């Protein structure tokens, strides 16, 4: 029965005339790419939950419209998975060209999954004209997304790093290491929360704990196996057994996202929280979402950081336009604007010493937000573990704490 239905469904798919074989753009012939891109509309699927981000994307769209004649439509997502689902659905339906998604804001597990399933176009990123300014040496994360080599299938456009934040009017001296956090929570039960894994911020908190407590953190950069997993995570589970009763709601309920942490902090339900965007608290202050007494800091041993990227699906309709937009996002102009906390405040992927004096001046002119750390205060970020760790950690976390034991 099912087989029969599948055959008829497949017949429908075949009945649709396939688009003519298209010519794949080659970013090395940049003049051809920009010429072909003119007049195209790029549907950029990107998370749409932040005003600052949405406004930056709209600005970038205006710029490439003016310079290259490309129209950018921001498809606002609540979750990157929606764009991934779309590409999978198109592949299932046999639509291998003229797809709906031209560019995706992506990183980590989503990238690993799409790369694995052959859903991405490329390689292209390292042939873009602006690639030469990328800080490949200083920020290895731009070529290795959660340790998975990007191999030119995605272009970096921002740097993120875990920071903790607290309301200095309620909590003056916050704990500066993972063990200190446990002790502090013991004295102040119910005043700290992390989002429920597999939310990426919640999972990153788990990885941060593992990195800090594991006897040999270097195993985290390799794919997980039974022996290294048990050794590395035993201290994590001991730690969480101690911490959980002292979490917000005693761990009987968890916030569902980092955004919810901002609300809880503003409502006075918690005194300590974390974020993956060093500038999020400053932005929230400017937006009346947090009081101006909120401050941020990083842990003494450093915190996990990663890069975020844009990728082009294998069946994208406006590949040339997407390439031009991706290249623009790596330009000094776009990166400097993006780093400005008044606009967004995301870390740059460029090496400032590779820029000319005029472009460097754009970065020097940026004023940091009241709760934003200077780059030297953020320090060197710690690398993300291999994505296979995340899968195991999330499974085990759910079994131990996520289902009401």
């Amino acid at each position, binding site marked *: 029965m099912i087989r029969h239905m599948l055959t008829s*469904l497949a017949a429908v798919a075949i009945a649709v005339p396939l688009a003519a074989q298209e010519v794949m753009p080659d970013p090395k012939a940049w003049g051809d790419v920009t010429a072909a891109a003119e007049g195209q509309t790029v549907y950029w699927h990107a998370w749409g939950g932040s005003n600052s981000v949405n406004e930056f994307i709209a600005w970038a769209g205006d710029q490439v419209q003016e310079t290259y004649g490309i129209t950018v439509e921001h498809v606002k*997502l609540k*979750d990157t998975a929606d764009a991934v689902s779309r590409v999978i659905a198109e592949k299932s339906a046999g639509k291998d060209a003229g797809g709906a998604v031209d560019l995706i804001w992506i990183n980590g*597990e989503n990238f690993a999954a799409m790369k694995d399933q052959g859903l991405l176009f490329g390689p292209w990123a390292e042939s873009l004209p602006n690639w030469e300014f990328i800080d490949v040496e200083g920020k290895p994360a731009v070529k290795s997304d959660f340790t998975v080599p990007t191999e030119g299938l995605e272009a970096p456009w921002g740097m993120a790093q875990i920071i903790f934040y607290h309301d200095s009017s309620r909590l003056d001296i916050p704990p500066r290491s993972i063990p200190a956090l446990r002790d502090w929570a013991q004295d102040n039960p119910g005043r700290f929360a992390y989002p429920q894994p597999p939310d990426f911020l919640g999972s990153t908190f788990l990885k941060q704990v593992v990195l800090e407590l594991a006897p040999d953190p270097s195993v985290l950069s390799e794919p997980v196996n039974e022996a290294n997993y048990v050794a590395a995570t035993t201290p994590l589970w001991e730690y969480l057994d101690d911490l959980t009763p002292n979490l917000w709601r005693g761990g009987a309920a968890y916030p569902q996202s980092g955004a919810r942490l901002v609300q809880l902090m503003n409502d006075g339900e918690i005194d300590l929280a974390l974020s993956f965007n060093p500038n999020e608290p400053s932005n929230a202050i400017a937006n009346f979402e947090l009081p101006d007494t909120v401050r941020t800091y990083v842990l003494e041993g450093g915190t996990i950081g990663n890069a975020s990227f844009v990728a082009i699906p294998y069946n994208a309709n406006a590949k040339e336009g997407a390439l031009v937009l991706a290249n623009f996002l790596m330009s000094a102009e776009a990166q400097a604007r993006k780093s400005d906390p008044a606009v967004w405040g995301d870390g740059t992927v460029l090496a400032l010493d590779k820029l000319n004096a005029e472009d460097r001046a754009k970065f020097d002119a940026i004023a940091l937000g009241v709760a934003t750390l200077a780059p030297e205060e953020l320090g060197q970020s710690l690398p993300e573990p291999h994505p296979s760790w995340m899968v195991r950690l999330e499974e085990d976390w759910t079994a131990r704490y996520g289902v*009401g034991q």
Partner: protein
Amino acid sequence: MLGPVLAGLLGTLAPAFGYMPALGGTTFSLNAFEALFAWPGLSSAVGLSLGVGLASTALSLAIVTLICAGWADTRTFAMVERLLSPLLSVPHAAAAFGLAFLIAPSGWIARGLSPWATGWEQPPDLLILQDPAGLSLIFGLVTKEVPFLLLMTLAALSQVRAGQSLRVAQALGYSRVSGWLKTVFPLIYRQIRLPVYAVLAFSMSVVDVAIILGPNTPSTLAVQVVRWMNDPDLALRFQAAAGAVLQLGLVIAGLGLWRGLEMAVAGIGRRWTASGARGHRVFDQGVRGLALGLGAVAAIAVIAGLAGQVAWSFAGLWQFPDLLPDGFTFRNWQRHGARLAGPGLETLTIAALSTGLALLLTLACLEAEHRHGLRPATRALWLLYLPLIVPQIAFLAGFQTLSISTGVDGGRMAVTLAHLVFVLPYVFLALADPWRAWDARQDTVARALGAGPDRVLWMVRLPMLLRPVLTAAAVGFAVSVGQYLPTLLVGAGRVPTLTTEAIALASGGDRRVIGVYALAQMGAAFAPFALAVLLPRLIWRNRKGLLNG
């Protein structure tokens, strides 16, 4: 209607049994179900879904029944009716956000009482929201289901001559509530049975409200399925599909259980009716008060929640325990107001088109049934209701694949057609029973006076059924306004509506933005409901018999 439903189901079933070539699944296996049953939270999640669904449906039905039994045809009841349209037009997620802000330990109620009455300088660490038993979720669902069921009951009431039955019963010495329950309720329930089933299926599968108000260690099965569906680990898509199949089974089991309860209640009710007990005045007063009190709590929760949204949309900094924000600002509206226009227009166009189409199809169907004396096959009805019973996210995966491969994809028309799949059952649901309950003797009389079947339809039947028709249209309109996944999936993200924008922005958690968009969404859904209540009153102000039976 058959195509999309079957393709949608297929898109759920095939991956559940391991078949999804795009993700490398080319053989059939039970691995996905094995993984699903190995998930440690499964029994709690299933129990929770079932319990929440049954409890919220039973509670809503009880409140609606008792309000009607105690208050139908009174001045209080007229006031309740006027409240209906605003209550119905609040989107589910917005109502849930509003309720969450009301009852949280740092919420509006606690702020009103702190610190002067409670002594709380900071909110207490109390598990009120997202409690493991799902009580706050049940509360949230009841607040939205009571208005819907009441609306359906009102449409049915106008067809069963409730007033006359009640007068006869009262003349025979029955108290008001007992008389209504014994004479009117059996007639009404027969007509609102399908809406009740839809409510049950909905509350067992609801996702957005359950994420906001429901427990999360574990959450309900539907929420968990969505989590797996959205997980970057694509292998979990198979498990998600298996979970969706289980969810479907769960909904069917829930409906079966409800059917069993129906029969039990009917048996008890028959014995109670046959006993001839007239009921006591004091008991009556108690029931009337209780019903009105519960209804009022539900209504106040939604309205106060909405007031909270209004306050947030103008708020500057607003911290615990301040009852009101530090300052008010137009900035949020300035920022988003201009951006509401495009998606707002798109929302209204699509809602009007899909509701119009659904109404046309429903009327054509029902009229053909009437003229040719057809009895609708139960199996066909089930197909129509499948979109309401199969969890949306799983049903839609296959639906999306179908729309891409047929090329009906990515534009306003495609989205309208997708909405139609969900709007049509609700319109049919809302209209079928009142339409069929129309007294066919009117037809005989009109035909005897020389009118042809078309004239009877346009001059007698439609005018007499104006209220149920408008009500059905309003429900359909609101359903279309609220669609998120069909719009996103079939529209390829290229057809932005108020709801797609609202949900994307809500993921950023800023209550001010959520407030602005919730009010815009509510505005879009409000007008049709208001018309459905007001128009019959205006047109039939001299025809009291057409307003209420």
